[in-house]
């Protein structure tokens, strides 16, 4: 009987000690960064002992949630304007904003035979639907429209466009075959230096404005050791290599 209180005390002390060192950071992550974030979070836990819990979604929705008191400490956005806006509104910890990745746009099809000669598939126009992310709200959608304008196919293809609310949904439309092809983030269809399936055309970066994705520590992250550690970790060479392996520039 005596040993039980002792064991409990020991456990409580242990738990207390762990809590003091290892903290948890809640990270709001842009949908396009889902795959790399999963790898990074795992490595982060192993290397630092802290834990990063991610919520994935659209940048606009996160903006609404953060300005209304959502409990995220770090925000990895899909663009650079939303973190800047939050900074202007005093919702972030000043001086913490930086570009963690620059996105690459890819024209992708689940059909391995469809995209054989790059952008020409758009000019031939022999498909039913072309999926893009909503250009009003998603940076990859804005970039997709810029590319179609540069290729002068935007007016011809306008009746065939379907919009995903974010890049994850756009990918879903294409991967289920409901749209034969679509502009998605390279990170969604790319792993370890190659396209994971189907066929693709990696859009040259000079055809659209760079898709700069900024990270920032939010005001709620003040005093959270894991938030600081996570931001430092994002800047490490190890993580940069992970981010590159998913098809981002950095």
């Amino acid at each position, binding site marked *: 009987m005596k040993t039980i209180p002792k064991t409990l005390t020991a456990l409580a002390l242990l738990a207390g000690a762990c809590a003091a060192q290892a903290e948890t950071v809640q990270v709001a992550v842009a949908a396009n960064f889902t795959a790399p974030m999963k790898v990074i979070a795992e490595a982060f836990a192993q290397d630092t002992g802290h834990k990063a819990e991610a919520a994935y979604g*659209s940048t*606009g*929705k996160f*903006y*609404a949630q953060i300005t209304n008191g959502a409990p995220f400490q770090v925000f990895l956005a899909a663009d650079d304007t939303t973190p800047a*806006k939050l900074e202007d509104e005093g919702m972030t910890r000043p001086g913490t904003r930086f570009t963690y990745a620059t996105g690459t746009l890819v024209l992708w099809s689940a059909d391995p035979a469809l995209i054989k000669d790059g952008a020409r598939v758009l000019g031939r126009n022999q498909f*039913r*639907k072309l*999926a893009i992310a*909503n250009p*009003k*709200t998603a940076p990859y959608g804005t970039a997709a429209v810029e590319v179609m304008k540069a290729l002068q196919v935007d007016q011809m293809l306008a009746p065939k*466009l*379907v*919009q*995903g*609310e974010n890049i994850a*949904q756009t990918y*879903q*439309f294409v991967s*289920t*075959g*409901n*749209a034969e092809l679509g502009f998605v983030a390279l990170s969604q269809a790319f792993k370890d230096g190659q396209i994971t399936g189907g066929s693709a055309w990696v859009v040259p970066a000079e055809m659209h404005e760079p898709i700069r994705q900024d990270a920032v520590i939010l005001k709620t992250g003040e005093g959270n050791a894991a938030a600081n550690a996570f931001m430092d970790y994002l800047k490490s060479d190890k993580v940069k290599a992970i981010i590159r392996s998913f098809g981002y520039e950095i």
Partner: protein
Amino acid sequence: MGFSDADIQAIWLTFRLAGLTTLLLLLIGTPIAWWLARTRSRWKGPVGAVVALPLVLPPTVIGFYLLVAMGPNGPVGQLTQAVGIGLLPFTFWGLVIASVFYSMPFVVQPIQNAIEALGERPLEVAATLRAGPWDRFFSVVVPLARPGFLTAAILGFAHTVGEFGVVLMIGGNIPGATRVVSVQIYDYVEAMEYGQAHWLAMSMVIFSFLVLLALYTLNPNQRRF
């Protein structure tokens, strides 16, 4: 501020979708409700459960399976392609079919309850007066179960207007075809255009309130749904 042209297009589209869905649901839902109200078959339970499924399933489940089923590799998609309709996702008619399924319980259940409440007696009396089955239905069931039909129509319409998750998943946000009011509001919020979002969102609140007010005022005794 006020409504933009895109807002008006979305509102018109939403009403067209809801109107058509309600009409189809009254046509399809009435025989189902009639059968459910009067059958003693062992299939009554399973069929009733399938009709009620959209009440409990999240729209993500319905939207996801509709997207897969209606897609080029899905059973519905292969059927529609074989008969020459093409694929349904990203089309107005795709939304109509999804809405019929999604709003089904809101139409079937009030009608079913109203018919069950009638009991056998009025129909037996009508039969002894030599009314045929169709005559009994239109001269006895419809007038007596009128509150149930009214509730069904109003709820079916309102629930379709309020649909969001399913439309988001199979719609593709095409102006004039699949961009309904709820999606338009979502877009405004995503784009941080909160002023425009408020206009449409507040209109939805007022509209929904008026619909329910009409339902409860016109139909004060109808509480069976």
